[in-house]
């Protein structure tokens, strides 16, 4: 009898096996990523200091955001980050094309250009804050030499965000450059050859022959740059703590300040900021996923 009716496991082995293999990963992902997302959304409806009783206040946290100048400032700083950070893509492409030639010692130059990406963001932040530092910083001294009056970038509320973004671009350009260098390795030489026979060179060659072949690399570069811009936290934290008077805050740093820093512990408000940041990220992430899905199905 048992021989006639195969067990449930035998009958469905092929269907079940992938899920069994996925189970540990899915469990971890659910416990540490998916569930906390919903918990954050839940907490964002409370007024809670992390210690005492949490009181349900509905959407009051979200209502407060609209009249909170710090929130507005952080949001616009995030927009500036997003726009300027994307400069890493053309800059990285430029350097990659420049380095994509066979000269003696090119490997050394490549690794030197890649170097900033290897350093941790914290070190990048420290290097740049010394570079900008009033009284002894290199940039300060140079400006002082030419104009007679130094500019302390990190003390100036109008310049500070740009100063931090410049620091962030340094490793980001290196990252994009590496993506493009590997992409350039895969450019088909016969197509370049054919284009050359047809008389294409310079910008035309780049735009009509090289760039289309680099599309996968461009896609990844844009994705990592957009996500990198939205989660910019370490540089702000290291270089300015969001100052002077909150001029360089971004959403992720403001969330940390409200929920977890020394003067914060407004868990509900911090969670609400996190939800807003998540929503902004979702716009981009779903766009990327949609594009990837479309590419897969077209093939």
């Amino acid at each position: 009898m048992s021989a006639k009716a195969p067990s449930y496991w035998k009958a469905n082995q092929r269907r079940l096996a992938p899920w069994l293999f996925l189970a540990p990963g899915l469990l971890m992902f659910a416990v540490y990523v998916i569930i906390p997302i919903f918990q954050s959304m839940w907490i964002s409806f409370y007024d809670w200091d992390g210690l005492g009783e949490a009181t349900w206040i509905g959407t009051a946290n979200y209502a407060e955001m609209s009249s909170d100048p710090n929130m507005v400032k952080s949001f616009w700083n995030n927009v500036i980050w997003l726009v300027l950070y994307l400069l890493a893509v053309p800059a990285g492409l430029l350097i990659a094309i420049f380095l994509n030639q066979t000269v003696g010692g090119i490997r050394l130059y490549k690794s030197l250009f890649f170097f900033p990406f290897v350093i941790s963001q914290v070190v990048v932040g420290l290097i740049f804050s010394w570079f900008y530092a009033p009284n002894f910083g290199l940039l300060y001294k140079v400006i002082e030499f030419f104009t007679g009056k130094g500019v302390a970038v990190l003390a100036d509320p109008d310049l500070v965000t740009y100063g931090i973004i410049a620091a962030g671009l340094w490793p980001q350009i290196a990252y994009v450059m590496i993506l493009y260098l590997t992409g350039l390795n895969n450019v088909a030489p016969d197509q370049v050859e054919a284009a050359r026979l047809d008389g294409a060179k310079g910008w035309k060659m780049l735009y009509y022959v090289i760039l289309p072949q680099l599309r996968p690399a461009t896609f990844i570069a844009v994705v990592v740059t957009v996500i990198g811009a939205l989660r910019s936290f370490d540089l702000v934290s290291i270089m300015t703590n969001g100052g002077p008077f909150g001029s360089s805050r971004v959403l992720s740093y403001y969330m940390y300040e409200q929920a977890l820093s020394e003067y914060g512990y407004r868990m509900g408000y911090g969670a609400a900021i996190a939800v807003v940041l998540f929503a902004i990220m979702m716009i981009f992430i779903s766009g990327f996923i949609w594009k990837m899905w479309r590419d897969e199905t077209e093939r």
Partner: protein
Amino acid sequence: MVHKQAGALALVAALLMSTSAFAQDKRVLKYNADYDPIPLAAMEALIADFEAANPDIDVQLNNFDHEGYKTAIRNFLTTDAPDLANWYAGNRMAPFVNAGQFMDVTDVWEENGLNDALGSAAASMTIDGKKWGIPYTYYQWGIYFNKDAYAAAGVDVPGPEGVDWATFISNCEKFSAAGIDCLTTGTKALWPGAGIFDYMSLRTNGYEWHMDLANGKVAWTDDKTRQVFVELGKIQPYVTANHAAIDWQDAAALLVQGKAANYVMGNFAVGVFKEGGMTNDNLGFMAFPEITPGIPRAEDAPTDTIHIPAGAKNVEDAKKFLAFVASADAQTKLNAAIGQLPTNKNSSVAADDPFISAGFEMLSSAYALAQFFDRDAPAEMAKAGMEGIQQFLVQPEQLDNILARLEQVRGQVYK
């Protein structure tokens, strides 16, 4: 062979029994703290004295990193409470007191006559008429100055009695002419600017008004608040430019190098000044000048404290320890080692340190002691307030916007 094994077993058993008996003898007192190396050594010496006096108690000190402790305390108070924990006085302890995480220790104060001995710190340890911990050390704030910078600018060096406000401002003009920053600070971490504001407020409108402001009873748009900023505006042009991008240690370097003359700071900065090469001969200290004549002189004196968490297991011995820490002798010894001031008025201080003795003199004759802006005001107000102060020091023309924003925050914080 068998005999040997049996013998070894018996030995092990005997050892086990003796150690367990040993452990039973001593009652364990778990103490979570956040000391830097020098205070840690001083506290370990104090604990050794306490254990010598109470051989049946074993104090287990669990030292945390200073910054990490501020986060850790919120976790361990609710999950795995020790018997003793470090924290700070004033509004800083209010969240824990209100959440029922600290134990009422009014009885320790009553039984040991501490209401009198620790009188100057009593108010800052009281919430709802009860005492919530024991202060063991504090330090004075005031103006530290470089006498060489005074000489270089041709300004008379102030005596121990300090100068008046008009003289201070006119000195600033002379320093400015000589290319020296009259007043330096580094507000990257925000709190150093609050020290200046505290004194402007205490000297302009007095202690009671200042505490009302910190407790949200006075509007930020009030005329008296405006008056504080008017006075602050008089020295604003003479404050180190770019202070928003530098840390307090960088500003200390400016004072040491003679590029700045005065620095409103806490006494812990003396160590940094001296490491930079200053000595008792060219480093001076004075109380912040009087601004509104006749206002009783109040000072900033941030107090460090020890508390018993509500979840403590060995409360009886913890109270014994608190009483010991509060005693005059223990405080004398501890504070001599860390170079700060004892809160017990019967303690003595080292006479050979001019800054310690000046501070002890200044605080014991003060009308009242404030904790510091970020300890007197609730966290959210403190953060917004310190940002406002920093902004005013950079953009004084924005005063109306700053005050309007702080008033908005006040409406949200104090409900």
